[in-house]
């Protein structure tokens, strides 16, 4: 089960309102390489993993990604909260406002809603963990694109933290992939598809 703890994983802040930037950063809330996609990918894949290290790693990283979903939600919320509609009207956030007002909604930076087709969940653990390695690299790249879009030092701190986490997760998934290959060699009979 999951339990909410009443703090963020990282003190996510903004120094000024910026609805234009909110409309871009939201892609990490509900876009293909966003935090919701990451979390649900790992929390879906964990059940059928053949080794305990893989179950634990997917569980813990999936949980951490939910905390990142909250961090991105905090940035988007802070960037638009209290901004008058006639200011929003002149920004890239206007199409979001027309549908949802200032509420957070999991969508990408073009307004496409979140969908689970963004990720896969295979019984073959090598297929799933290899997808996860790619997912972490794609998310790292998106954080770098977003870092190019702002000079707000508070947002840069937060996006740089999240980018760094993708690198750590990539490292851990790489270790899991090696453990899976070891397992595959020792237990070809237990290995789905072999």
């Amino acid at each position, binding site marked *: 089960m999951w339990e909410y703890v009443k703090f963020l994983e990282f003190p*996510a802040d903004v120094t000024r309102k910026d609805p234009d930037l909110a409309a871009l950063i939201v892609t990490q809330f509900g876009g293909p390489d966003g935090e919701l996609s990451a979390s649900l990918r790992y929390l879906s894949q964990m059940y059928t993993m053949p080794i305990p*290290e893989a179950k634990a790693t997917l569980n*813990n990283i999936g949980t951490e990604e939910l905390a990142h979903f909250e961090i991105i939600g905090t940035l988007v919320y802070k960037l638009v909260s209290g901004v008058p509609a006639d200011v929003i009207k002149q920004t890239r956030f206007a199409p979001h406002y027309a549908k949802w007002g200032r509420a957070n909604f999991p969508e990408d930076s073009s307004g496409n809603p979140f969908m689970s087709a963004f990720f896969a969940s295979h019984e073959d653990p090598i297929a799933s963990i290899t997808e996860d390695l790619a997912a972490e690299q794609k998310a790292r790249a998106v954080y770098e694109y977003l870092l190019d879009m702002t000079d707000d030092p508070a947002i840069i701190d937060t996006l740089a933290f999240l980018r760094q986490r993708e690198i750590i*997760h990539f490292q*851990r998934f790489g270790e899991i992939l090696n453990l899976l290959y070891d397992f595959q060699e020792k237990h070809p009979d237990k290995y789905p598809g072999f």
Partner: protein
Amino acid sequence: MTGRKRPDSINLPLLLDIMAHNFVNVEAVLFLNTHPDCQEMLELHNRNAERYHRLVDEYQKKCGPLYSNYPDATSPWRWINEPWPWEINYRR
């Protein structure tokens, strides 16, 4: 912001200290999952977890619950108190 706010509703330096200790163990847990025999990380994990729980106890006594299943909750129910994590200005 509206609703219940008290002068002692948050203690930002203590909260930031708790967040930092939480993060250390997020990282330690991930490392231990793929290095279950690493004694050095295990000791860091346990030492940090103990400090984390001490800080959380101190915070919850002063400022109300960070966990809704806090056993020493007082009336009126303070779990609902603002600010929520996304409403805090961490840079003040």
